């Protein structure tokens, strides 16, 4: 299945990309994170468990167990600092 993955702020800079279309079959947010970490290098360190990261699925805040379906837009980003 195809999903759209986006990266913002410091994470975007660390990974060197703002996003990608991914052909993969993760069933949850946690599964997608594990799949991306398996790329190794900066992917493994920037997305490591324990890093304070937030995730949104289809522009709504999500949890590790949130399901991922074909066509979804999943965004990874650091805790927000607006205002």
């Amino acid at each position, binding site marked *: 299945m195809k999903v759209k993955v986006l990266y913002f702020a410091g994470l975007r800079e660390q990974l060197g990309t703002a996003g990608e279309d991914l052909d993969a079959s993760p069933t949850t947010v946690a599964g997608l994170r594990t799949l991306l970490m398996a790329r190794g290098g900066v992917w493994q360190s920037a997305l490591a468990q324990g890093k304070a990261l937030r995730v949104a699925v289809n522009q709504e805040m999500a949890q590790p167990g949130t399901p991922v379906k074909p066509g979804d837009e999943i965004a990874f*980003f650091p805790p927000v*600092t*607006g205002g």
Partner: protein
Amino acid sequence: MPVRIQTRDFDVGAEITALRGGNPKVGAVASFVGLCRDANDGEAVSTMTLEHYPGMTEKALEKIVDEAKARWKVIDVLVVHRVGELKPADQIVLVVVTGAHRGEAFAACEFIMDYLKTRAPFWKKEQTPSGARWVEARTSDDAAAGRWEQPKSDAA
């Protein structure tokens, strides 16, 4: 639209006048303006760049405004947040709440800012003499937002 994301500056007086719209039921206007400071965590800040997540930002802010309207009896709400490059003393964010009485307007305005700080996808990057750095989220902001999660009465 109660929510606007823009690069350009805003005129607080004009925004308040427009939101009031001459409505004689408005007895109170509470507003908050967030500004760019020239120093943070002991370092001088020369430029601040605000990044956001187009699409989600508007949705998140509209949800916060809806929640404020459900909790307090307010008449209207406006949130304006700037993105892009800002300098010290520049305006960053404006929240305006109109209501019949000040209690609801004050409470809703503070609630919206506290939730905006922790739930709306904005990120600040600062230029300092030792280089560029992303601003880290503060636990005090989480604590401020957490206050509103307590069961509350409508006595605000």
